[in-house]
């Protein structure tokens, strides 16, 4: 029997023949313009799905993934299916395994793509679509088979790893340990990691798996610090860890961060404890950790809100009273201006009164903005179209962007979505962010500003990006009232923006580096009851 490669065998099994290849090649050429649309829709669907969304890291990554999806679709409909083709598909399969994409998502994703490709075939070929449809089904089955093999390889590797682990001391120790202790460790709502004298992971409980995204058999025997990308602000983590491991000190508390399997940072407070009685075992220390990322965010927000509320009540009354002397000053200046015009008409004196008048107007604007901020009306929530709100805001900023020489791009979602919002206030938010972005981008002479809207599982996401010089520092209190980096700015724009977003029960945050600053607004798709 002539030796057959795995790929040849698979091809024979799904009965993909030369005629199919021809059909697919012809189909690929005709369908090419429609492929980017499939990729767009595909990732919009993923954004709406919570678990799948969690694996993704930002818009740039999504763009990259969309491009590779189009490249893959093009290859699948390319008509050439050789060993190189097989290798490329295997690589993709292994990437899926590496990033921890569950099999069920891979399968449903393939089903989605199958539906799209078949409907394109129907659209292009009508009554004569059948042979092409069959060819498509065969090649997609082939793809599926190759990708599933990658999972199988990983499964075998895991079983082997687990079997190796069984033979180590830990395996026997665990077997001997009392069952209730095992459950206690397993079910505890804290991260529990057991370490041997070299700082290698020997125990990894369920919470640890949940928070980090790693399965235990992936991390057993690997360095605690390396595999979780542990960092602490003082860089003393490794020293302090080794103090506990060597038994110099019995316990340490440290706040730091870890990197999850999908690459996200979480803030963790660690308790490191030397093993004591456990010391006979290979586990010489236990690290228990609590994920405080969400707590920290909540605390920061609550502090911010408290601060805003106290400023509000204190100063709102004062602001009203400022309007009276301003009024007096304004009228006297108007009077002076008129008197000067009548008597001498001296230009520099007129100029001086005009400057005073302008300054009074500026103060008046400040007072009005401040009162908007300090005494906000609750938002008047009505179903609002994301696309309309975005287009409206872009229209309003277009002129000033043009003047500043800034390119303004409005990146709409592939389908519109309605969510409860106060349209006027939402416009104010978008305008504040867009105007800031235009100013920032314009500062370097003709940059780009992008307004992007997307639908998530339970929220809509609105991003405003610019390629300006970036914020002066990562910790700049930009959402605080009266913090301004702009000449002539009131320092209230972003504070008001923050207020409006939180009044909508949404969140706003920012990431910034030179050349790219982006504000992310997330607003709920549904307002919970009792609002």
């Amino acid at each position, binding site marked *: 029997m002539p030796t057959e490669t795995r790929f040849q065998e698979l091809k024979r099994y799904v009965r993909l023949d030369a005629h199919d290849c021809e059909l697919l090649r012809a189909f690929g050429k005709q369908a090419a313009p429609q492929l980017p649309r499939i990729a767009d829709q595909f990732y919009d669907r993923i954004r709406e799905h919570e678990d799948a969304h969690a694996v993704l890291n930002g818009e740039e990554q999504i763009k990259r993934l969309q491009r590779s999806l189009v490249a893959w679709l093009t290859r699948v409909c390319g008509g050439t299916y050789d060993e190189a083709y097989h290798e490329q598909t295997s690589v993709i399969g292994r990437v899926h395994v590496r990033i921890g994409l569950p099999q069920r998502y891979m399968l449903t994703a393939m089903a989605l793509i199958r539906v799209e490709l078949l409907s394109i075939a129907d659209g292009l070929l009508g009554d004569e679509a059948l042979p092409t449809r069959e060819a498509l089904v065969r090649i997609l089955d082939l793809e599926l088979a190759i990708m599933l093999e990658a999972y199988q390889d990983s499964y075998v590797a895991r079983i082997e790893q687990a079997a190796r682990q069984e033979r180590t001391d830990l395996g026997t120790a665990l077997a001997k340990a009392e069952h209730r202790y095992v459950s206690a460790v397993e079910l505890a709502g804290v991260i529990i990691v057991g370490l041997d004298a070299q700082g290698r992971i020997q125990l990894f409980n369920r919470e640890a798996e949940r928070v980090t995204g790693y399965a235990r058999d992936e991390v057993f025997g690997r360095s605690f610090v390396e595999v979780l990308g542990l960092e602490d602000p003082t860089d003393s983590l490794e020293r302090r860890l080794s103090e506990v491991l060597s038994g110099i000190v019995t316990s340490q508390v440290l706040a730091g961060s870890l990197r999850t399997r999908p690459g996200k940072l979480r803030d963790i407070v660690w308790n490191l404890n030397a093993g004591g009685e456990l010391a006979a075992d290979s586990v010489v220390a236990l690290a228990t950790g609590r994920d405080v990322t969400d707590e920290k965010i909540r605390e920061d927000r609550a502090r911010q809100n408290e601060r805003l509320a106290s400023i509000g009540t204190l100063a709102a009354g004062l602001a009203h009273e400022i309007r009276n002397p301003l009024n007096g000053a304004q009228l006297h200046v108007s009077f002076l201006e*008129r008197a000067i015009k009548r008597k001498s008409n001296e230009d520099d004196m007129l100029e001086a009164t005009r400057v005073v008048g302008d300054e009074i*107007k500026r103060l008046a604007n400040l007072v009005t903005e401040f009162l908007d901020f300090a005494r906000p009306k609750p938002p008047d929530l009505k179903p609002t179209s994301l696309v309309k709100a975005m287009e409206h805001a872009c229209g309003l900023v277009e002129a000033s962007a043009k003047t500043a020489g800034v390119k303004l791009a409005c990146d709409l979602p592939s389908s519109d979505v309605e969510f409860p919002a106060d349209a006027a206030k939402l416009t104010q938010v978008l305008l504040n962010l867009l105007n800031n972005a235009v100013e920032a981008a314009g500062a370097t002479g003709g940059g780009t500003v992008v307004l992007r809207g997307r639908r998530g599982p339970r929220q809509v996401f609105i991003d405003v990006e610019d390629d300006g010089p970036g914020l002066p520092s990562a910790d700049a209190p930009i959402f605080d009232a009266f913090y301004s980096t702009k000449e002539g700015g009131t320092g209230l724009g972003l504070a008001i923006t923050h207020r409006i977003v939180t009044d909508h029960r949404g969140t706003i945050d920012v990431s910034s580096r030179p050349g790219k600053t982006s504000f992310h607004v997330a607003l709920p798709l549904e307002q919970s009851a009792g609002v």
Partner: protein
Amino acid sequence: MSIPPRLRSNEVLLVDADYRTSRRLADLLGDDGFQVQVLCDGASAISRLARSPLPGALITELAMPLADGETIARYARSRDPAIQIVVLTRHPHLLKPESIQNPAPVVLTKPLDYARLLEVLREARQNR
């Protein structure tokens, strides 16, 4: 609507506790052809509005000693619905929209945009 003879279209009643500033505003309006009477509290404003002939326009602040601007405006309206009412205030949010109606008053926030006030008064005078 018939023109009530007891209303002097060129006269303006200005009510505000800040006398110095009101006098200056009266100077400017006088310059622009209006006859302005300045009063500093709610009670004297109401007693002025009790007498005929009435001014064609009333400019009033909201918070004032003895009677507030809303009361003054409502009283003026009850005397003659044709009086042009301008609320000139440092806290426009205090004015409840239902308190003065048909027509609603013109509300101007301090500091005053003088050109806008002049426009309102001239238009009211013309329509009489």
